[in-house]
């Protein structure tokens, strides 16, 4: 069996009788058992549950009720609630929290017959760009275990890169699917805000959080998206006429020639010529496929990172108020009174980065500062969104770098503001709510480089068709880390 096979290939293998879902599941569980000590990409492995699901999947094939995902293993970021399984969100605060229900995205994938291998490591409460803030220790990049896999969905990205799972879920608030995809040489989609239900996804920043698929190929991403996305009455911000569910079909055919914009402001930030050349190669491939590339302007790009950190922290500061030691989660020993219960439970349960954002966000919402920070950030957010709407008036999609560089060594970035700059190319699309597809486009100093295709609201199918077109002409997404057998 090839651990780096795609979802499509594995489903074909089961259908053709080359192996059963149970055999496939055992194969990946064995790899996790044997290899993950090196990467720390899983927090919880749900072997028993996976094998039961796999047996049920095999039965579905026999009964003729299989879907294109039936029997294929997946790993869920530990931010998605999974019934009866610990859902820690990478935090000591929820280390003892067994979710009593399934997130909608998880339930929909389950319904398609997918097999859950376990829950992947992540930055605490999805706050980070490196997977170094997890209570369960840092995740290591399979391309170089001394380096980070990106974050916050770094456990999912590393598990894919190491061939420990053929598919994973992630969440993206300001780049948390796309940046780890880039650092780990895999694909990831941040869907349009409202495409994938947020019900059962532990909230970080409600107006930005969006779940999405991570996989080896754009075709796999499309399959997973079709299963995950769609209106959910349990999420009031879910789009009623959202994803068309036809991404997989769209990726099967060649797209019509598109006009693709290169944001001038992004290009100007690529200061390393060798790194910029890798990115430029992606442009050249798209041109060779008959697409037209033109420069476009997103004038408010420079304001995106500060705007994002005000809004995301403000929302996080109140979303995390429920972790008070009263009903579930970490509670301090022997509190003497209510204030002591709150202070010690939260001081002990949250890590440094989470505390920093709660403090920042509380400040931004306080009387006397609200107008200068939160309200102003919302106004700028509108301008950033308008930038994209204007750009999509003249182009079908945008081609942009995903991260300003390649995966950096664990421990290298200690200044939080420097770390926030990791998100410079990803937060604008998050603030605008538009979909963005990250995919590998080459290597720099032996490490994967990612690019992203950004499209108008709900253009996922078109975006994925373009991505699939690119992947038919390249094989960057089929490369595997050198020292992972």
């Amino acid at each position, binding site marked *: 069996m090839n651990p780096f096979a795609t979802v499509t290939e594995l489903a074909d293998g089961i259908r053709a009788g080359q192996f059963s879902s149970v055999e496939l599941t055992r194969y990946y569980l064995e790899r996790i058992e044997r290899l993950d000590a090196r990467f720390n990409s899983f927090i919880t492995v749900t072997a028993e549950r996976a094998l039961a699901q796999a047996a049920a999947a095999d039965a579905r094939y026999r009964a003729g009720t299989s879907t294109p995902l039936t029997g294929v293993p997946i790993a869920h970021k530990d931010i998605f609630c999974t019934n009866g399984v610990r859902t820690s969100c990478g935090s000591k605060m929820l280390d003892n929290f067994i979710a*009593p229900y399934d997130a909608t995205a998880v339930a929909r994938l389950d319904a398609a017959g997918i097999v859950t291998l376990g829950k992947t490591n992540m930055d605490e409460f999805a706050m980070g760009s490196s997977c170094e803030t997890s209570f369960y220790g840092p995740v290591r990049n399979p391309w170089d275990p001394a380096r980070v896999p990106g974050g916050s969905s770094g456990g999912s990205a590393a598990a894919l890169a190491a061939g420990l799972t053929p598919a994973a879920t992630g969440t993206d608030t300001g780049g948390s699917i796309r940046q780890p995809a880039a650092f780990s040489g895999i694909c990831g989609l941040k869907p349009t805000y409202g495409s994938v239900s947020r019900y*059962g996804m532990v909230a970080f920043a409600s107006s930005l959080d969006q779940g999405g698929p991570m996989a080896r190929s754009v075709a796999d991403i499309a399959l997973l998206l079709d299963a995950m996305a769609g209106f959910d009455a349990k999420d*009031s*911000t879910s789009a009623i006429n959202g994803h068309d569910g036809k991404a997989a079909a769209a990726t099967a055919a060649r797209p019509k020639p598109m006009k693709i914009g290169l944001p001038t402001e992004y290009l100007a930030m690529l200061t390393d010529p060798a790194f910029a050349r890798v990115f430029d190669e992606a442009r050249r491939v798209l041109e060779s496929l008959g697409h037209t590339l033109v420069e476009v302007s997103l004038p408010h790009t420079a304001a995106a990172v500060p705007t994002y950190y005000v809004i995301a922290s403000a*929302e996080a500061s109140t979303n995390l*108020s*429920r972790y008070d030691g009263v009903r579930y989660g970490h509670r301090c020993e022997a509190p003497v009174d209510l204030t002591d219960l*709150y202070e010690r439970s939260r001081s002990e349960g949250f890590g440094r980065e989470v505390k920093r954002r709660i403090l920042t966000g*509380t400040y931004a919402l306080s009387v006397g500062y609200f107008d200068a920070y939160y309200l102003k950030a919302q106004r700028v957010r509108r301008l950033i969104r308008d930038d994209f709407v204007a750009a999509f008036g003249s182009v079908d999609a945008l081609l942009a770098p995903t991260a300003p560089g390649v995966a950096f060594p664990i421990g290298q970035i200690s200044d939080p503001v420097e770390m926030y700059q990791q998100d410079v190319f990803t937060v604008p699309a998050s603030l605008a709510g538009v979909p963005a597809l990250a995919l590998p486009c080459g290597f720099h100093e032996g490490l994967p480089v990612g690019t992203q295709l950004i499209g108008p609201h709900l253009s996922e199918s078109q975006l994925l068709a373009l991505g699939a077109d690119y992947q038919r002409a390249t094989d960057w997404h089929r490369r595997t880390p050198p020292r992972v057998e």
Partner: protein
Amino acid sequence: MKWESVIGLEIHVQLATRSKIFSGASTVFGAPPNTQACGIDIALPGTLPVLNEAAVRMAVTFGVAIGASISPRCVFDRKNYFYPDLPKGYQISQFDRPIVGAGRVELRLDDGSIRTIRITRAHLEEDAGKSLHEDFAGMTGIDLNRAGMPLLEIVSEPDLRNAKDAAAYFRQMHTLVRYLRICDGNLNEGSMRCDANVSVRPAGTTDLGERTEIKNLNSFRFLERAIDHEIARQIDVIESGGRVHRETRLYDPDRDETRIMRSKELSDDYRYFPEPDLLPVVVDEAFIAKVRGSLPELPQQKRSRYVSELGLSDYDASWLTDDPTVARFFEAVLAECGEAKLAANWVMGDWSAALNRRELPPDASAVTAAQPLRGRSPNRCSNRCGTRPIRSATSTR
């Protein structure tokens, strides 16, 4: 010096929806603690609120009934504070864009005069749970059955001038919400609660004095006594050279006094901001028109009609219309006997006395309008057999 008191009320009306305002949990009163609190109500990670449409309709019903403007686009906000019975660490409420805008009610005073009370606004919000301090030594019990119950908070302008009028206003709102069937009006179960903002100023002046807020009054009598007490206390403070402090006070009915709950000299910072888990609520003209079209006859309309069309006295008309259950019963009796004065006398006399003797509320009456009347002349019915069916109906309970 002569003093004038200035009073405004905030009335919390628990809306009579079947499920909570943001979850599907039941709103039935009296269940064992924490048996009517679902994942959303206890704020499990990953849960999200979904607005109950019935609560919106009830709020609009109220707004239309008081001739208020209905916001075409209202917004929910988070009001952030930590308390053990507030599971999310914030209450979902409405801050600066409430669903119901300015309106007015005509308050009928005992002397028959009318006083206009301006309503500032009414907004939707969720209730918190209950902290139970008595039953657990050294601990606090939390019951989250009430968490997420739908509330309509009706805020009045400071247009009331004495405790009696304030109580009359509270009573009139109590009547109105029951007519509108948006609240069961059960004060004992906390279905209506009221906070009173009270200040005093020298008679004839227009500037407002510093105010105090008396929290959580749930009876007409306590409201009146609490305000009377607070007015006297404030006058006493000022006349003895002191100053009234901005603070929240609680009324203790056993001692008949208010005492300080917390100081509000520094205003609390609730860090209000728009709730990102909910979209703005759009209420269009068609929805409002539909609500307006289904509005029942309002108490004041009914009272006027009883006087002008049925020839009842002001007193009788008020008595019969105060409680919609009584009015409905009266109209059923009237339909049977056809004589308004006779029907009124019987309802106000024998029927009401029979209920009073058994300490039963009007809706517990098992007698139907037809029972005492069928086959008998109205005169006989009202004089002789009126109470019998009630006795037999209630004795079997």
